[in-house]
Structure formats: C-alpha cells, structure tokens
C-alpha cells in the first residue's frame, strides 16, 4: 500500500506539470470599445484587444464569411478610404519597446473585396495616434494627437504615406513642420491643381496659428508655412477652400483660409517661386492676402458667378452672403432672410445658370429653412436670386445622396427626430419623422437610407424613390448599419449590435425582412487565429 499511496501524488504532480501551459492572452481579454467601419463590400470590426480587424463580407445567402487580419498591438486609430475599398489602421506598437521582438508602430492597409487581406504594412518611426486620410484615397497622414503623451515629443512630426505604393525608404515620408509655436489641428487635401511646376496635389496642415503647405508629389521637401498674422495676433485657421482657377493656367490656383471667430479670410495665391527665395526648394510660392467678409464667416467656398470667380463667405450675424473677388479682394453682399451658416454647391446636380454660374444650397442650425442661391443672378439683382424653403426644424447636418438619386439631399433636424428629403430640382422638402433620436446612413448605391436609434431595437429602411419607410424590429439596438455589396450581386445591410462581443444581423439590403435575415451572436469570439 505504500507503493500504491505514491500513485495518486504522482498523478497529481504530473497533472500539475503538464497542465501548466497557459493560453493565448486574447481569451483573457475583453473586447474594447465598439469600432466598426463600412466598406464597399464588407463591414469591418476593429478588435483592439484581439489586435485584429475582422472583415465581414456577405455571401449571396446573407451569411458572413469573416476574415481576421492582424493589425498589431496598441490600436490608435482607424478609418476607411473614401472609395470604400480599404481600411487603414494605425497601431502604436509596444510602448515602450523593451524586447527585441516587441512591435513597432505600424500602419496597416487592409482591402476588402473577394480576398480580404493586408495590402501593405508601413513601419513608422514613432508611436503616434493621429490619422488623416485623403478624400481621394491616395494618401494618409500620421501625426501626433492630443492623446500622445510621450515624455518628450515633437508635435510637428508627421509621416506622409502614399497608400498606392508599398513601403520603401521613401514611403512613408517623415517630416517636421516648420513651426512658429503651433501644432497640427487638421489637414486638407487639395484636388489636382495646376500650379507652377506642374499639376500636383497639396496638403494643407492647419495648426492652431498658421497653415503649412506640403507638395504631395515631393513631400520630402517639407512645408511652406503660411503665417496668418505678422503682428503677433494668434489667428486660428478653421477651414480651407480651394480653386484651380482657369484649368489652362498654372498661376491662378488659390487657397482661401477662414479664420475662426474673425472677419478675415486669407486668400493664398500659388504663384511661381522667384529665384533666390527661401522657398526655392518648391516651384511655387504661396502669397497670402487678407480680405474681409464683413463679419465673422461660418463657411466659405469658391463659386462661379456671372461676374467670374468669387469666394463666397456666409456671415450669419449679418444675414448675408459675401462674395469676394479673389483678384481684387472687393466684396459684394447678398442679403439673406435668415442666418445661414453653411453652404453647399449643388451645380453638379441642378445644373449651372444660363451664364454658367453656380447654384448654392444654404442651411442653418438656427433657422428652420434652407435657401437656393442662383449665384449667376447676384450681380445687380441679389434678392431675386434667393429662394427659401421653410422647414419645421433647423438643420443640423446634410447628407449627400449618391447617384441615381443625387438630386436629393437628406437634411437632419437639430432634434435628431426630424428629417427632410430635399429634392434639389423640384425644390421640395419631404418630412420624415422618427420617434426617437435617429442615426442616418445613406446606401452607397443611392437607392435607400437607413435610420436607427442607439437605444431602440429597430431599424428602418427609407426608399429614396418612393420615400416609403419600412420598419424592422430587431432584438438588439443597432449601433451602426452598413449597406454593402454582397457576393453574387445584390446588397446586404449589416446591422451591428454593440453587445460585449458584438452581434450582427444581416438583412437583404433591397428587400429587408426578418424572415430572410441571418443573425450572429458573439462575433468577436470567432475567427481568432
């Protein structure tokens, strides 16, 4: 029996020894904040503690075909490119890096499509958290955000990444902005501009006191700083508008910089660089001129009028639209009946005036109306050019609708319950009412919109042709909804439920019905490598 008495302890000891292997850390973690993105043909969940992106394409039978793609440690930020084809994820890596195999900062570019996967992974020099993407899906900028709290940090260090090319010695391009005390607050990517030295795109970096202009074709040359004040007064750039001017000319492209809480607007002409100038590394020379809008503008845009190119600046305190000749700086004012704050050029939808001038849509967060302004008829007859449309509620946001219904815009009321489908051609505004504060999402194919409330287990499809809403009752509130193309044709809606491991309801996008929907629970438990 003495020998027998040794068996059990030996078994237990062996069990303890062999059972001491641990498990992957991810199973001990809980998913982080709900982060979801919509791509053209998939949705993507960013699983921060799982260090992955879970891309969710939809098969023809409304089931998901998840693909898990590593994104590295230390998630910082993510965004989709404007074309909806790629997800860009910024990770800070291991901070601090103590071991040779600790991960460094990484920018991952993930594609959806038939074979979701990592397209490029760009190693970055510093663990930064700010990410800005080019609206033309070509470039990304990684910059220090307020969340970056290194012991010593240079807030003006940027990395410019060309997303169309793989990583190389020249990509990403690190650079440090010339600084007069400021730090980046925002970025503005211009379209292709005909400027001295050839057509190219520019990146304008808005700091808290000046604007840096970077040539995206040669970012290694650094920036040209446009100082907004020479008197020491701190002027904060709030918005940039751009015009290429006459496409046949390369010396009439301009930027306009709206200054926060100031009646000044800085017009920046992009002129040929003169030999011997400090900016000789660049072929162009930004030349600022200060013009006055007659009050504090809240929005600016370059517009074509029958008098030529003008900078339009909305001045709600004056209830006016100021049109500034960029060549002379001379303003003229169009009186408005309401304090409109935002301007949107809708010429592409409604067509230009007989004289080739733009049409503008104006709206306001404080006045329950919108206005159409025919800018071609403003010279000499300003009042006749404005057509107001009364609403029940001021407008908080305007959503564009893609073709074939691009004649429509969705106006979201400030109460988040009132919506208007604005027909730019018929000049009608059809009210759509939600019983609870609703989020709005327009399908990329322009045929429908989806409305959801974060606290309601409901979602509604709004047909943008008939304006007929179809309500659907789900079991969980919908935190986000993405209308995506599904394999084999057709559309699918992925209604994302922000439950601990995220639930997803997949509906037929064109004919949503619960009978045909597929529901997934605890999606973030799945497809972990």
């Amino acid at each position, binding site marked *: 029996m003495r020998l027998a008495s040794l068996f059990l302890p030996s078994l237990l000891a062996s069990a303890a020894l062999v059972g001491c292997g641990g498990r*992957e850390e991810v199973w001990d973690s809980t998913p982080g904040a709900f982060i979801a993105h919509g791509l053209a043909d998939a949705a993507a969940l960013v699983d921060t503690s*799982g260090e992955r992106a879970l891309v969710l394409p939809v098969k023809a039978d409304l089931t998901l075909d998840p693909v898990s793609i590593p994104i590295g440690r230390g998630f910082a930020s993510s965004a989709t490119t404007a074309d909806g084809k790629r997800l860009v994820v910024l990770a800070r890596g291991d901070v601090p890096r103590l071991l040779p195999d600790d991960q460094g900062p990484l920018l991952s570019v993930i594609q959806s499509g038939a074979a979701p996967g990592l397209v490029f992974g760009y190693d970055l020099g510093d663990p930064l958290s700010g990410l800005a993407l080019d609206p033309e899906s070509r470039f990304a900028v990684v910059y220090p955000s307020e969340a970056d709290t290194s012991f010593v940090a240079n807030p003006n260090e940027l990395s410019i990444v060309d997303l169309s090319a793989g990583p190389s010695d020249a990509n990403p391009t690190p650079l440090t902005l010339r600084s007069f005390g400021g730090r980046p607050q925002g970025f503005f990517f211009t379209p292709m501009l005909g400027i001295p030295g050839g057509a190219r795109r520019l990146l304008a970096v808005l700091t808290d006191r000046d604007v840096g202009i970077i040539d995206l074709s040669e970012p290694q040359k650094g920036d040209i700083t446009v100082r907004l004040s020479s008197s020491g007064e701190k002027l904060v750039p709030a918005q940039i508008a751009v015009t290429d001017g006459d496409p046949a000319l390369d010396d009439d492209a301009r930027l306009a910089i709206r200054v926060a809480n100031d009646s000044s607007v800085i017009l920046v002409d992009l002129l040929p660089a003169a030999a011997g100038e400090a900016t000789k590394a660049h072929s162009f020379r930004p030349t600022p001129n200060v013009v006055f809008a007659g009050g504090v503008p809240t929005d600016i845009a370059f517009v074509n009028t029958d008098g030529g190119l003008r900078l339009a600046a909305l001045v709600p305190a004056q209830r006016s639209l100021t049109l500034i000749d960029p060549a002379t700086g001379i303003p003229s004012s169009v009186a408005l009946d309401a304090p409109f704050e935002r301007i949107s050029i809708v010429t592409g939808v409604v067509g230009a005036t007989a004289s080739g001038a733009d049409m503008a849509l104006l709206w306001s967060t404080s006045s329950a109306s919108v206005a159409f302004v025919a800018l071609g008829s403003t010279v000499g007859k300003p009042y006749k050019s404005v057509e107001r449309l009364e609403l029940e509620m001021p407008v908080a946001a305007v959503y564009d609708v893609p073709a074939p219904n691009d004649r429509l815009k969705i106006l979201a009321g400030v109460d988040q319950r009132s919506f208007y489908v604005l027909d730019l051609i018929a000049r009608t505004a059809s009210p759509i009412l939600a019983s609870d504060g609703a989020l709005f999402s327009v399908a990329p194919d322009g045929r429908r919109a989806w409305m959801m409330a974060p606290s309601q287990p409901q979602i509604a499809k709004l047909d943008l042709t008939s304006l007929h809403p179809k309500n659907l009752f789900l079991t969980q509130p919908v935190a986000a909804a993405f209308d995506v193309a599904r394999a084999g044709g057709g559309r699918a809606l992925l209604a994302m439920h922000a439950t*601990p491991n995220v*639930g997803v309801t997949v509906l037929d996008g064109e004919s949503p019905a619960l009978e045909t929907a*597929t*529901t997934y*629970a605890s999606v973030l438990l799945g497809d972990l490598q």
Partner: protein
Amino acid sequence: MKRATWLLAAALIAAPAAAHAAGPRVAVAVAAPAPAPARADDTPLPVKSSRPEISLEVGLRGTLIPNPGFDPYASNDFLLQASAGAGLTVVRMGNASILLFAEYDGGTRRATARGQEASLALHRIGGAAETRFQLGRRFYLAARVAPAALHLRGSITDPTLDRPLVSRNWTWGLDASGGAGLLLGRVGARGARFWLTLDFGYRFAGESQMSYAPVASDEDPRKYGSVMLPAIRPAGPTSRMTFAVSF
C-alpha cells in the same frame, strides 16, 4: 463511429457468455488449465481457469491538450476526466496476457473566454487492447492501444440570448500508452482482486471544427449564423489512474 463503439462494447461484454457456450472453440483465447506450482505463501499467481477474467475499472484520466483550440475553455492545457472501463482477458500465455476493454472517459473544462463563460465537454468512447506482463504476484506492466470516438460539446453563454451557443462534433482518437498495475488485495470466494493501475501515453486525435450557434428554440425562429472558434485537436500526452477489480 458511435455505433461501432457500442457494438464493440457489447461484444466484449457478451464474450464471457459466448466463451462459456462455445467451449473448445474459444480455447485459443483462454489459456489451458495447468497445475499451479506450489507457493511458499498463500497469494496465488493470476487466476488460470477456463473462464475469461473480467476486469472493471473506474478512475481518472488526465490529458494535456497543448492545442490553441482548447484555449477558450481552460486557462491551462490540462483536462481531467472520469474514466470507466470493462474488459476481459482473451489470451493468456504464461505471465503474459491480452485483454480487450470497452472504455468511457468524460470531463469538462470551463473558463471565461473574452468575458463570456465557455465550456467544453469531451467524451471518449472506445475500445482498448492491452498486453500485460506479470512481474510478480502483485505487479504487472502493460502496454495498450485504444482507438476511440471523441465527442466534443462546446457551450458559450451570450448575455443577449436566453440560451447558449453550442458546438457539437465528433472526431477520432487513438491512445498509445504503457503502464503498470499494483495488486491491492483480494477478497471473496471467486478471488476478486483489486488493482491500482497507472498508465502514461499519448493520444492521437483528429481535428474538430468548433462552429457555434444558438441551440434551436421554438420561441426564437430567427436563422442564426455560425461563429467559428479555433478548431480543436484533443491530442497530447495522457495518463490514467484507475481502481480495478478483476474476477
């Protein structure tokens, strides 16, 4: 697989009766009676009779499953199972003997997987062929091969559902092990003997896909999709300790 296993078990259980009825036809499986040599003490060598020796076992099995698929259900790689078996000696040649067994092992691990309760039950149903070599009156060494059917049932609670997500799957297993038995004592007129056995070995096993969906419910007619957790291959070093009685 399950059916074959039960047929094997039934065959093993029925074997003693069949041997008794068939008489000489099973003589190859039963050592011919031989006069036992005189012993200095009262403890006999293993029974040598015309009746096959029956063994019944209960005990514990410990298996190390160093497979990522096991991670959601356990904070380490160890799976402890209850074990039971029944067998009979089919061949005896001197101090060596061959036994056939029917076995069942069952055990569960539970853990929190990303904040949700997850459990895995592993059931093993199979047979075994064991060769023993008697080193003395109280001790033998053994080697065994044990094919089996493995049933895995995973369960995960989801706070938004009134029932768990479940995955069920079958796969195959094959244990190869060696061990020893120690005679603890004997009682009864028929000479029932009590053994403590311990074996160590390795389990080979097939991979099991773990596809989770809620169990069907009449109150919830929704169509659910599956969530794929890592596939499990429940292979690895294994050991078993049993208390056995043979008669």
